[in-house]
């Protein structure tokens, strides 16, 4: 009883800083500043909505504080103990029986090495042996659901929207199987894929492989939504950023590129390592990315600022890495697996846990969602290790429920399809959707000034033109034009013409003939006969 009371009381007594942090978790950005708004109706509406939002946040924080049924797992060392020295046997021995059963070893040394995948609720596990052994397990109950031998090299395997279907990247094509292990589809568009990723909110199956072609295929309609040429050669490292559904691809030249289906070029391209990339992983809120390279570095990146945070050096280049729901980092190389705690936002000094694989060398590792379990695929089969504090202890039944019934699953499938997001909605900042893209004030002013200047220039030019032109009525008549043309010619010739005229004794006045001197006509000649007196 006292054990129950202790932490609760402590919780209650804790200062309000904890509450503030908790409330901050539910905050979706800054409040709207309503003070300067003059429209009273709008102001009232905004204030009301702000109040509603803040009340909802407070309520959510309260729920978070008091009503969630479970606390996260933990591993604490006492005295001279160190957490990384605890072996799996120690931990399994110390935890409850049900939890201890979750650590197991599957010895499958014929068809390995194995890659694996967990379903979104963490209940099911998929195995894919390199030599074509596919298996779907309800691993928490140690039940094999289906098993197939496809007799073909299999590179990768992924669950689709629920545990009913999964996709496997085989030697030539990508195949989709159902939970009985029957081949449902063969995606002949995607050839030689080595990496698969499924975007569950968009129903997009993404694949990249030896051809360096990144393909997005909608699994609800079957359409190929986009296919991008990465132009970086064969690619075998792909992970999604679960926060914005951008795909991160690791390349042989040490770069990481991020892709969305809407843009044919990478939205982000960053040089992460000297030498080829080995693996990468992004955390669930899109804050950090971890890359491991052949140069032996394990680097942590800030995904929002696209900046390196810090780097760790692994004894030999890490082959695989993953980040758990609560931010634990697992890194594996050879026969070793290390788990790091608080290694993303700050630089950790020592690993949280270490583990040595007995069965073989590592191929793939994944944290199981909603469980304190790390699944490891290696050349000798598949094993799991307990990592206290890795998984989110409280699941949301409407998001992913490990104890989902058939009816609930069907309901959830329909709802997921109704809420399916369009591929065009994949952007780097998922909060930008439904907001007005507003330019910064300086840019606005600059643009305004530019437009104003251009307008002024145009007006000035027009005015200059208008002034040059003399607008007078009737000036543009054809006859006038003709005469003007003539006039101009004569005007040009004017000096010469004038000189000649002077020589000939003609008046310089253009167009006026000088009166010729009258011929002598005798006075008695009648007027009618004057014309016969020629000059």
């Amino acid at each position, binding site marked *: 009883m006292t054990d129950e009371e202790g932490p609760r009381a402590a919780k209650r007594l804790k200062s309000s800083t904890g509450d503030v942090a908790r409330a901050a978790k539910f905050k979706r950005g800054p409040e709207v500043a309503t003070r300067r708004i003059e429209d009273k109706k709008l102001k009232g509406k905004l204030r009301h909505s702000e109040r509603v939002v803040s009340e909802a946040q407070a309520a959510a924080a309260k729920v978070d504080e008091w009503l969630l049924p479970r606390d996260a797992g933990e591993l604490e060392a006492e005295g001279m103990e160190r957490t990384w020295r605890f072996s799996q046997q120690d931990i399994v021995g110390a935890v409850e029986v049900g939890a201890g059963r979750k650590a197991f070893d599957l010895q499958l040394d014929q068809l390995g090495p194995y890659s694996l995948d967990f379903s979104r609720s963490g209940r099911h596990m998929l195995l894919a042996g390199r030599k074509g052994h596919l298996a779907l397990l309800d691993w928490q109950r140690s039940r094999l659901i289906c098993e197939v031998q496809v007799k073909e090299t299999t590179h990768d395997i992924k669950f689709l929207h629920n545990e009913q279907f999964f996709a496997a990247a085989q030697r030539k094509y990508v195949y989709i199987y159902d939970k009985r292990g029957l081949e449902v589809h063969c995606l002949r568009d995607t050839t030689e894929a080595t990496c698969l990723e499924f975007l569950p909110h968009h129903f997009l199956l993404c694949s990249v492989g030896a051809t360096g072609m990144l393909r997005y295929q909608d699994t609800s309609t079957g359409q190929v939504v986009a296919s991008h040429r990465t132009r970086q050669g064969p690619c075998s490292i792909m992970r999604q950023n*679960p926060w914005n559904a951008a795909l991160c691809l690791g390349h042989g030249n040490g770069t990481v590129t991020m892709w969305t289906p809407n843009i044919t070029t990478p939205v982000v391209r960053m040089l992460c390592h000297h030498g080829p990339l080995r693996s990468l992983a992004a955390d669930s809120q899109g804050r950090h990315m971890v890359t491991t390279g052949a140069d032996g570095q394990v680097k942590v990146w800030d995904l929002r600022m696209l900046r390196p945070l810090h780097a760790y050096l692994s004894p030999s280049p890490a082959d695989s890495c993953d980040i758990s729901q609560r931010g634990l980092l697992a890194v594996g190389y050879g026969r070793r697996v290390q788990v790091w705690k608080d290694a993303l936002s700050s630089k950790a000094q020592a690993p949280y846990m270490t583990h040595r694989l007995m069965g073989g060398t590592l191929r793939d590792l994944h944290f199981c969602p909603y469980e304190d379990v790390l699944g490891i695929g290696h050349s000798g089969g598949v094993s799991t290790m307990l990592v206290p504090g890795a998984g989110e*202890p409280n699941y949301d039944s409407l998001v992913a429920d490990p104890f989902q019934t058939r009816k609930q699953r069907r309901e959830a499938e329909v709802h997921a399809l109704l*809420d399916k997001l369009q591929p065009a909605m994949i952007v780097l900042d998922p909060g930008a959707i439904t907001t007005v893209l507003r330019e910064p004030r300086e840019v606005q002013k600059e643009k305004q000034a530019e437009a104003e200047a251009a307008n002024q220039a145009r007006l000035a030019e027009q005015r200059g033109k208008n002034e040059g032109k003399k607008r007078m009525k009737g000036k543009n008549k054809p006859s006038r034009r003709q005469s003007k043309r003539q006039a101009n010619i004569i005007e040009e010739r004017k000096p010469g013409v004038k000189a000649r005229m002077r020589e000939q004794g003609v008046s310089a006045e253009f167009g006026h003939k000088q009166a010729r001197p009258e011929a002598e006509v005798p006075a008695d000649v009648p007027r009618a006969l004057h014309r016969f007196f020629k000059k």
Partner: protein
Amino acid sequence: MKVKTINRSEEECTRSRAQDVQKVHRNLDPALHPFEKAKEYTRALNAAKMDRVFAKPFIAALTHDDGITCLARNPRRLNCLLSGSADGDIRLWDVPARRCLRRMTGHTGAVKGVSVTSDGEAAVSCSTDCTVKLWKVPFAPFDGGPIQEEGEAVLEFSGKHAFRCIDHHWERAQFATAGAAVEVWDHERAEPVQTFTWGSDTITSVRFNPAEPDVFATAGSDRGIALYDLRSNTPLRKLVMQTRCNAIAWNPMEAFNFTVANEDCNLYTYDMRRLASASCVHQDFVSAVMDLDYSPTGREFVAGSYDRTVRIFPFNGGHSREVYHTKRMQRVFAVRFSGDASYVFSGSDDMNVRVWKANASEQLGTLLPRERKKQQYNNALLERHKHLPEVARIVRHRHLPAPVYKAAKLRRVQQDSERRKTQHRIAHSAPGSVKIKAARKKKVVAEVE
């Protein structure tokens, strides 16, 4: 060593018996709910689409033998509707059962107005045969079966001229008729108690104010809207508009406001204290508006037009929220809101009274709590995303009959060119020399005391 890992037992997380409801655990941590804005937007789009998909407003048609000229609802009963037709026939309808309870024959001319008394037990009707008749109105019984009794008039009042409209007082045993003059009658007297005239033209519509028992308003074919007080012998004020008003209705919640249905395709809402300018102009019709009726909530009203459509307007909105039409519906002459504001009745030339839902996509019947919640959620989503172009486009979209669509387009072109012309005129005249009259004042010709 202190160690603890997640260990959920299935018994704890699931229901214990098959009869129980499934356990639902929520965790509101934003990390578990990515893409919340995109999801909300998608849901809003879906809600808008659903809203349009389920918009099936037409419920029933109740048939007469001639064109419908007037409708009346019973203030005491939700399920009763009275309709008068051009052949002198009045029918009492049991709306939920869609059957005719009683036919009231006796008028030899077209029935022009029906109104139910305040106690809901009698109705008065007026006709072009210069008579007003008072009928007993039975309540619709709860048991089914076809009832079609012929009804006889209880009282008959004869006037000197053809009547065009009638309105019963909501409190007293009085009613007002409109025709060549406005006359106020008492149930006990054979002759009108009071007679009002102003000018010589016919009055087409009369309505008592729902709050002030002595005040009523009329609209006439002399383009005038007049306000009267029973305590004085002369009309109070009169407003002359550019075109004629066909009908008038008071807002039941803001009883100083009334709306008139005008011949110029628009409706105008006036404040009776300030007649110089309309407080709102409601446009969208493309032909004369024939009748209107306020919802009992006072937040919206329904209007029917000569262009064969029925529209529902918000009381303060310039454009209609909803438009109803069918292939067979002809010119609409009478419209009424039901007493619970959830249905709309329209009577048209094609001898049918049509029953419509006031909210086209509303689900009829009792809603389960979950359905109601979902509906509220959808409405909130639509409200929140209504300014987004894609959502707004879907919500705004209405199919219109081709003639109405074309006429509306033509009207828009005309109005645009008019506006452009005015702008040009302003731009090329001395500042301040062009006076623009607001649309709310434009149609007011004169205000007479």
